[in-house]
């Protein structure tokens, strides 16, 4: 971490990046129906303005010698030993994310103008999108873990609101709750990590924590790394918290593109990359990151092969690709840049793919069932072209973005040079083949073959306000990889953050890796053509399938595992606690009260009101006393 300077000039205005979309959200949410007519334009304008500002800021940053600037805003919490200052940190890593968020965000806002044109609640949609952009920018711009946490929860809230945007659909409401709750699991990990930082180091700012992390005990650092990983897994839909992400596709498609593909779900990658100084100290936590990435990569790819829902296939693809990124950042210094490059490239082509899927759904009366698509390539030419470019970029077709960035990850894995390097590299290559298979299957089922449309479906190309962002993204998909890896190396740009990129001794020559990966990719495409393209696609999914397919269709039983491991025991525990509370605690309290009440009402019967009865009691007492006295004196 290099020295940071107080920001001046345009960088001093970087708080506007957050304030602009936040103001947009506030105006749209508080303005009510008065803003219905121009709300979507305002929402788009704030994000575009933020993008312009971000570009300007980044140019200024590039001119700075330190390439890092901090903006002190105000004191957030100052109590006792805790002194949390709200401030922004504009460094190359933040800049990359800010550009991605505002850039892709702008495109998707523009796209949404067309996509949501007929929705009565379009203003609310743009308000939530603006809220999301503001929160996400705070997440990546904050200069402390507390600021990051505020943004972290903010994007969780926005994600919840947007998944449940059509809250009258039970499926959407349930999916939103599922996403929110599974995110909470991760958030707890992040919160605990922040608590540990404060307890052990007394500070939560990046500079303070990373400067002092070397002084911590090894176990503490490992715990910190694992807790942060838990938070990252929750937000990024990684194993074992991956189940919410496919369900989140219940939200509108632009949401899926922006939040659940390009930006928010990559926050976990950002967190781990940002915490590189912590992970540098703890090989255990880094190995855990690797394991999570590798497992998720395969789970996502396998599940993606079986679904017929176009958005779910893309969602599992996202899960799988983020698995690649985790794998990369888990590799340590060798992988950070590769992972972030893949993240950026993925942001382009996955957003493009989702927007294309939205365009297809738009054309097919909002159907998502690929078995009822087919033969759309000449009906939706622009969508087909942009989607196809995204597809090629994703599967790693030579010289498109995926090729550069994915190969870099696989190379970095192999460069570990040990057995694990081979295993991880193998997994990554296998994942590449599976990616090629399921994406080709998706392409074939959607755009080729016989038309299997439902009655009354008349596909038409989307309006230009929707196709324009798709074209821009397609261009990005094609060129991003080359730009980031070769023409304008990301490694150089990120050097102030991650240090000098060291020239690794390649275990396998890059050319060999490229050839092997391309071959595996071709195998996947061929397999898909053999299974899907050659034959007629049935309109209903076959029931008699192999156990592997059945498992894949259930996303490898992630929900069942969650249910049996966490939900059922939780319910049992709750029921047991309720039982103990009702019978044990309440029973004891109520029983005591009932005993006292009953005995007092029974004893109250002795209060007859008759003086003579009381006098009888007194005489009885006198007899007892006399008898006792006599017994004592006689004894």
């Amino acid at each position, binding site marked *: 971490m290099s020295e940071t300077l107080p920001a001046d000039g345009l960088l001093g205005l970087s708080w506007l990046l957050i304030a602009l979309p936040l103001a947009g959200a506030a105006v749209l949410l508080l303005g009510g129906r008065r803003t219905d007519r121009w709300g979507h334009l305002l929402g788009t304008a704030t994000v575009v303005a933020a993008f312009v500002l971000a570009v300007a800021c980044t140019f200024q940053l590039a001119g700075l010698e330190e390439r890092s600037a901090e903006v002190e805003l105000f004191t957030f919490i100052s109590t006792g030993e805790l002194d949390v200052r709200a401030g922004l940190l504009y460094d190359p890593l933040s800049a990359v994310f800010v550009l991605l968020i505002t850039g892709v965000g702008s495109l998707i806002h523009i796209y949404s103008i067309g996509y949501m044109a007929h929705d009565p609640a379009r203003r609310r949609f743009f308000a939530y999108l603006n809220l999301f952009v503001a929160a996400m920018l705070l997440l990546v711009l904050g200069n402390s873990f507390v600021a990051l946490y505020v943004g972290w929860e903010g994007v969780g809230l926005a994600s919840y609101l947007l998944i449940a945007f059509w809250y009258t659909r039970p499926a959407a409401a349930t999916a939103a709750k599922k996403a929110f709750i599974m995110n909470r699991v991760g958030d707890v990990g992040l919160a605990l990590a922040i608590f540990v930082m404060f307890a052990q180091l007394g500070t939560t700012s990046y500079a303070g924590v990373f400067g002092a992390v070397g002084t911590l005990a090894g176990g503490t650092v490992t715990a910190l790394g694992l807790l942060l990983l838990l938070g990252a897994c929750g937000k990024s839909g990684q194993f074992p918290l991956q189940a919410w992400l496919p369900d989140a596709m219940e939200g509108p498609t632009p949401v899926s593109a922006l939040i659940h593909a390009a930006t928010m779900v990559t926050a976990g990658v950002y967190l781990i990359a940002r915490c590189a100084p912590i992970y540098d100290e703890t090989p255990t936590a880094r190995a855990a990151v690797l394991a999570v990435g590798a497992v998720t990569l395969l789970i996502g790819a396998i599940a993606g092969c079986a679904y017929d829902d176009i958005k779910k296939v893309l969602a599992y693809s996202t899960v799988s690709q983020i698995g690649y990124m985790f794998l990369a950042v888990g590799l340590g210094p060798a992988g950070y840049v590769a992972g972030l490059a893949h993240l950026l490239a993925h942001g382009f082509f996955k957003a493009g793919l989702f927007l294309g899927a939205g365009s297809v759904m738009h054309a097919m009366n909002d159907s998502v069932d690929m078995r009822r698509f087919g033969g759309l390539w000449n009906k939706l030419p622009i969508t087909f072209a942009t989607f196809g470019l995204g597809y090629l970029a994703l599967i790693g077709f030579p010289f498109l973005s995926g090729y550069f960035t994915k190969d870099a990850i696989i190379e970095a894995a192999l460069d570990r040079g040990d057995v694990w390097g081979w295993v991880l590299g193998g997994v990554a290559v296998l994942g590449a083949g599976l990616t090629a298979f399921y994406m080709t299957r998706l392409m074939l089922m959607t755009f080729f073959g016989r038309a299997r449309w439902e009655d009354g479906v008349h596909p038409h190309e989307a309006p230009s306000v929707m196709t324009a962002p798709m074209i821009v993204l397609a261009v990005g998909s094609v060129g991003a990889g080359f730009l980031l890896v070769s023409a304008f190396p990301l490694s150089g740009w990120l050097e102030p953050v991650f240090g000098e990129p060291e020239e690794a001794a390649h275990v396998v020559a890059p050319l060999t890796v490229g050839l092997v990966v391309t071959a595996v990719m071709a195998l996947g495409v061929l397999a898909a053509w053999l299974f899907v393209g050659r034959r007629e696609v049935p309109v209903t999914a076959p029931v008699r399938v192999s156990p592997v397919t059945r498992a894949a269709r259930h996303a490898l039983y992630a929900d069942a595992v969650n249910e049996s491991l966490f939900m059922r025991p939780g319910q049992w525990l709750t029921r047991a606690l309720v039982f103990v509370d009702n019978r044990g605690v309440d029973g004891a309290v109520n029983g005591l009260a009932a005993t006292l009440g009953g005995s007092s009402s029974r004893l109250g019967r002795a209060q007859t009101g*008759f003086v*003579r*009865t009381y006098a*009888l009691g007194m*005489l*009885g007492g*006198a*007899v007892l006393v*006399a*008898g006792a*006295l*006599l017994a004592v*004196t*006689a004894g």
Partner: protein
Amino acid sequence: MTETLSGAETVVFWVLGPIALAGALGMVFSRNAVHSALWLVNTMLALGVFYVVQEAPFLGAVQIIVYTGAIMILFLFVLMLVGRDSSDSVVETLRGQRIAATVLGVGFAALVGAGIARATRGLTVIGLEGAQGEAGNIPAIAERLFTDYLLAFEVTSALLITAAVGAMVLAHIERAPGARQTQKELSRARFLTSDRPQTLPGPGVFARANSVAVPAILPDGSPSEASLATGIEPQEPDEMPRPTGREQFGTPDAALGTTEGTPSAIPGGREQ
């Protein structure tokens, strides 16, 4: 210092002891409250004599004068106020009360009796001659009372005053000021609001009969309903049996008076 008492005292005890006991039992068992009070007087008189016998002539006098005289008269006074006929019914309303009371009473008496017997075995009589000296009982009591027990004595006077005031407060019936009319107000009300300022006519006045059942005859000869006592069926003089001459005097019908004779004669009177 002796253990046994003199023969005369023994006689007195065995005469008055049963009387006191009988008085106590009679008080408990007589159904009429006045009888109970009288039985209690009996017991108290016997106790008073016991006090005198036991070298406490002052207390004996007080017992007879204050207790038997004043307090029991107070009891009787209240009994008369409350009503002599409010005697108890013999039915016991509380279940088991009599049996329990009897059992406990017998048990208590047995226990206390046994305790006394144990405690006073060999109890000697010192007698008060030493304590009283030549002056006698009353100066001895006075000496102690106005020296050692002065404070208690004074406090007792406060207690008596308080009790007297308390009894007055409790027994007093509050009347609002002016609720009781004066003689002047009463007569003014009678003359101003009533048609009849004078007293009501007596029955039989100027009538031919002097029975209470016969209305008075007004100066105009008509009978006056106002003269009749309430609750008596009025009798028409004409319907009454008509005794003649002197027979009516001293006969069972004499009470009805005569219907004969001149108005100047004394009605119902003896013939001149």
